[in-house]
């Protein structure tokens, strides 16, 4: 193509724009100086102060538990929703159902957060850890549903049909055939749900209560006071965790894909 130099320039600039701020943030977490503009030499002291900051560590623990719980429940509910959307054809209320799956993806968080809070107040539920879990489950399940749905749409159903024809009950067919085949999408959905939960400031701020301060809420309250290398340190650790997670996930999906291809080859070669 003639314009490939243009393409390379565009991509270079685009990725520079996306990555340079993050790289700067990481680099300055190792800065011995407290000032952003002064490089005072390499130091791990901010990681030490971060580690000994009890409030920050408590918030991290709350966030991790909220993330695991809401991502897990959200993945189960989201996978069910995806199955219903792709497999059940038309059913009563389908329009509303798919509407409720897509709307949370674009709904401004202040609206979702406020409306959930008012629901909890109306129901007389004390706000705290569990209300945040419920709120996060609600919006993450929609993301999981979209991810799993796209996998189900490109799914070869002949294996499933074969199992059903051979008298395998539907539930068993799901766990033995369908679930293993859509598993990479389910895992990707879980990871997306977990990072979204880890990330959320606005909805958590509305639905949280005493004793359930999440990490974004903590970071936000410190960021408002100014830039400190300690925040850079905790951000760097979060970025590292997410990057490692994404790399492991992509390697494992590649591996399962490879194994699936090998299995198919084997199945084709084996005489019936």
């Amino acid at each position, binding site marked *: 193509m003639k314009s490939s130099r243009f393409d390379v320039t565009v991509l270079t600039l685009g990725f520079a724009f996306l990555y340079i701020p993050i790289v700067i943030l990481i680099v300055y977490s190792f800065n011995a100086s407290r000032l952003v503009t002064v490089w005072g030499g390499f130091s791990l002291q901010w990681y030490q102060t971060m580690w000994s900051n009890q409030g920050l560590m408590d918030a991290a623990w709350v966030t991790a538990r909220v993330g695991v719980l809401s991502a897990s429940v959200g993945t189960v509910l989201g996978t069910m929703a995806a199955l219903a959307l792709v497999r059940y054809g038309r059913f009563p209320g389908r329009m509303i159902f*798919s509407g409720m799956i897509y709307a949370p993806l674009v709904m401004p968080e202040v609206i979702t957060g406020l409306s959930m809070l008012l629901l909890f107040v109306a129901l007389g539920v004390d706000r705290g850890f569990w209300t945040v879990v419920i709120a996060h489950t609600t919006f993450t399940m929609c993301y999981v549903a979209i991810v799993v749905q796209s996998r189900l749409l490109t799914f070869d159903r002949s294996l499933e049909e074969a199992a059903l024809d051979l008298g395998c009950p*539907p539930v068993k067919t799901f766990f033995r055939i369908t679930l293993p085949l859509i598993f990479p999408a389910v895992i990707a959905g879980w990871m997306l749900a977990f990072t979204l939960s880890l990330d959320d400031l606005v909805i958590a701020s509305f639905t949280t209560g005493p004793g359930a301060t999440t990490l974004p809420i903590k*970071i936000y309250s410190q960021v408002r006071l100014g830039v400190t290398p300690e925040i850079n340190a905790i951000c760097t650790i979060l970025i590292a965790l997410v990057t490692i997670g994404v790399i492991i996930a992509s390697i494992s999906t590649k591996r399962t894909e490879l194994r699936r291809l090998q299995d198919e080859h084997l199945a084709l070669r084996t005489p019936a």
Partner: protein
Amino acid sequence: MAAVQDIDTQDKGGLGRLLVAGLPYLWLLLFFAAPFFIIFKISLSDTAIALPPYTPVFEGFGAIGDFFSQLDFENYIFLTDDPLYVTAYLSSLRIAAISTVLLLLIGYPIALAMARAPGSIRPTLVMMVILPFWTSFLIRVYAWIGILKPDGLLTLLLHGVGLLGPEEQVQIFRTDTAVFIGIVYSYLPFMVLPLYSALEKMDNTLLEAANDLGCPPLKAFWRITFPLSLPGVIAGSMICFIPITGEFVIPDLLGGADTLMIGKTLWTEFFGNRDWPLASAVAVVLLIFLVIPIMIFQNQQKKVA
């Protein structure tokens, strides 16, 4: 599609199916749909100094008559009376519209370049666009504070290059410009990915045919590539425009005192002034503004699925 449905109707286990569809359905009805009715209801009630800080309008289903007699549009009248709110709504829509155009202008060339890249490196490029999206929104906005601050890295860089006098500082932080930078930076992956998936599917033979028939590349782009990528343009624009309108974190951390955005107003009304009914009214009006974009988005998604 018909064949698929035939198989489905043969499925046994009606109870199982009911459970699979019913559980997420009920969950969303209870925790996503029902709250909107509550928000609407509370927006019509009075503020009270108590916990919860409002007087309920609606108690039980037998009181529908009472409900209508107590309806109180005071909060809505207040919203239209006070120019602060009207300005905040208009300014949010303006910022969201400008940002969406900026995102399109920046995102389109990137998506196009990705789609024209050799097939072997495309998955890596997609991965590289997605990866920043996995890192926290808050962190990405925070990263820009250190760059844009008057004594931040941009000032340092421009001093070094000599574009800025030693006494001068970059005056971007806490202005609308900083908000635009923050929004474009945070939402870029959401714009690039739908555009890319539309462009990637495109049939290249169309462009070759245009080329063979003597159509200049730029004209071919406008007559073929762009119209075919329109679904991606619409999807990307809606995915960005709708949440940006209600954005809170970016205007709060990067914007100035005069950056009015309705998400920030709602937040202040709720957490600062503890006026829940007014905050609810703000949310309801924002939702009314967004109904049409959300419907366009839903329609688009249905076509894709």
